[in-house]
């Protein structure tokens, strides 16, 4: 009798504890549990104090813990794909994506991504960003990125003036001459970093609209496989121009070992005169180094006498793994993250951004330099094509591979032509394995 009573009492206590625990959940919806931990995997450089603040707020509101896993940039994409392929995908993760890349970047969207098509936050993204997170008419992710001009030359205008460079270079020859002057003054003309693996190839791809301008129909030809990378003389020219900058010392002594971590310091301490980044880096440099008072300027990358704007409706996007044990909790986090007030927290807590590209009203922080630069850009410069990696298939898929080949080119191990031939081979492999009829 005593045993039966003890059993009933025990069960009653357990039941009460469960009810109490359930009643203590605050703000969870859709069957989300409060006592779980979600993993969120991001690449180094994609997370800022704003994210940590939101994670803390989310925990206070729902009791759900977010374990933020920051992976070195050079390893992030490989690791995401390896984890997805092995069935051990993180609950939430970010990858660089665009309309053509989503399949390659996430291995198999329909198999590995949680379907978010019914989520209310999809219209927070501008329509131009939706294709980058969609596949076969289903929506899978949320892309929150800034709309600053990206990636261009951000230069020290005061230093330029002191060295007698009175205006921003407008052609390749002018850029070369400016770099020579800066180098002669004992300053690294351009702070470049190869060790991260993702940055040094940007100048080649960001001037994609210039290639199209000089070779009308190029993007179409590359996408229907009637033109190969190795056939495009302009590609080879630009790779050689970039290599010449490296060999002449314009990238500095340690460009092969440099990482993004040293970029702002190099700019603020006048070790370098130019960085290749998005325009909002100006406000970041100023915030990190308040003693730095030099005037900054922005200009377009000038390889191949480029004068086109790098339009790019792509960027890192946040996805959830279809194999997650906590789909409701993950969706809860996405809903929380995309609330207008929280987007403002994210923007305010992201020093690298001056704005966020969303459809809801936020208080943006555009810099005067950005506004002045954008005022000088015409529609004609903007509307030619997207940058090469976004406008062509199977290009962004091999971003790091292309970067490794360029590093080999810098070391004299490969020629520009060989870099392009290797790119064609990888494009063909990816296309064939995806059953692309243009490569059959």
């Amino acid at each position, binding site marked *: 009798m005593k045993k039966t009573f003890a059993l009933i009492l025990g069960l009653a206590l357990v039941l009460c504890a469960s009810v109490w625990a359930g009643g203590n959940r605050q703000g969870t919806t859709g069957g989300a549990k409060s006592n779980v931990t979600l993993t969120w995997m991001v690449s180094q450089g994609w997370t800022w104090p704003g994210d940590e603040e939101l994670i803390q707020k989310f925990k206070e509101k729902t009791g759900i813990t977010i374990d933020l896993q920051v992976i070195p940039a050079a390893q992030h994409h*490989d690791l995401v794909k390896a984890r997805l392929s092995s069935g051990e995908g993180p609950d939430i993760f970010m990858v660089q994506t665009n309309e053509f890349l989503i399949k390659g970047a996430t291995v198999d969207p329909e198999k590995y991504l949680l379907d978010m098509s019914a989520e209310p936050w999809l219209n927070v993204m501008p329509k131009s960003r939706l294709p980058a997170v969609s596949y076969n008419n289903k929506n899978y992710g949320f892309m929150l990125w800034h709309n600053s001009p990206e990636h261009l030359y951000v230069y020290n205008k005061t230093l330029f003036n002191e060295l007698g460079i009175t205006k921003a270079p407008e052609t390749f020859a002018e850029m070369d001459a400016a770099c020579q002057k800066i180098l002669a003054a004992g300053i690294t003309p351009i702070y470049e970093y190869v060790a991260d693996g993702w940055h040094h190839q940007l100048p080649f791809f960001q001037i994609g609209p210039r290639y199209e301008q000089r070779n009308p129909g190029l993007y179409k030809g590359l996408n229907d496989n009637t033109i190969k990378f190795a056939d495009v003389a302009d590609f080879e020219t630009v790779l050689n121009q970039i290599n010449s900058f490296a060999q002449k010392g314009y990238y500095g002594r340690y460009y*092969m070992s440099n990482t993004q971590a040293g970029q702002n310091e190099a700019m603020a301490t006048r070790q370098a005169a130019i960085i290749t980044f998005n325009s909002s880096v100006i406000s970041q440099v100023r915030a990190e180094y308040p003693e730095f008072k030099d005037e900054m300027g922005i200009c377009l990358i000038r390889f191949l006498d480029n004068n086109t704007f790098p339009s790019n409706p792509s960027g890192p996007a946040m996805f959830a793994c279809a194999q997650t044990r906590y789909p409701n909790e993950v969706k809860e986090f996405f809903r929380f993250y995309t609330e207008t007030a929280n987007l403002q927290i994210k923007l305010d807590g992201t020093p690298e951004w001056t704005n966020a590209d969303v459809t809801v009203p936020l208080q943006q922080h555009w810099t005067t330099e950005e506004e002045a630069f954008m005022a000088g850009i015409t529609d004609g410069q903007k509307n030619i094509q997207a940058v090469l990696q976004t406008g062509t298939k199977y290009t962004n898929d091999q971003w790091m591979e292309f970067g490794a080949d360029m590093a080999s080119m*810098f070391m004299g191990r490969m020629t520009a032509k060989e870099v392009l031939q*290797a790119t064609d081979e990888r494009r063909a492999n990816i296309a064939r394995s995806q059953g692309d009829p243009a490569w059959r």
Partner: protein
Amino acid sequence: MYFVFPVLALYAVFFLWPGLSGVWYSFTDWSSHHEDVNFVGLRNYVQVFTSNSDYSRYIFNTVRFTLISNIVKIIPALFLALMLNQGMRGRNVYRAILYFPSALPYLVIGLMFRSIMHPGNGLLNKLLGAVGLGFLQQEWLANPSVVWGSVFAVDAWRGIGYVMTIFLAGLQAIPDELYESANIDGAGFWRKFFHVTIPMLIPSITINLTFGLAYGLKVFDVIYVLTNGGPGRETEVLGTSVFREFSNGNYALSSALNTLLFVFMAAAACFIVTRLNKKAVEL
């Protein structure tokens, strides 16, 4: 037989079957980009040896790493073991210090040495500059001429203690009488080393070489954390390329590379075990 069967069954299910499946998949077009898996014969192997992607060079790099990393670990470890097998004071402390790096995870070692070897603000270049050897300053992990040396140095720093411990165990098993007899015969250090120590250490050498070969041929972590195969593709090895191809969804190609790795390892292990076992001295 009945006692062995459960273990044999587990071995077959968890080791043999996945291994053989991997070999089978290397003859298919299995990838993340389509659902069906078709037999394609030797296509993946042909791609390994003929494509622009330099897989042949990765195989060469793997063999090079295996040979050199063993040399730079085994020879110093042998002499360290001989030294620490003497009755010197504090030898246990020295043994512990030398063994300590082997207990550290490669991730920690990688982060530590990437920081130490950074050309701009790394400890190594700063130290060289401070002692007047500034001309030796290098981009240790980004200069193709020195990057392999840096990798071998870090690998040896971590691995010597472990190799030394195996030698120490072997040295302690050599009977003192053999050295005493050699002393009576008037043998010097080198004579005793070559005619007593080495023959008696053959089992330890075999163990170290077999472990070293297996480790070298499947090397991944030290390369991945230190250079990620770079600069460019300078330090890419089979292990990192298997990982990269798998990450890219090229499972069949990845399996082909893995199968090649297995073949090399099996051949090398067989060679070493059969050759050295013949030379082992039995007491």
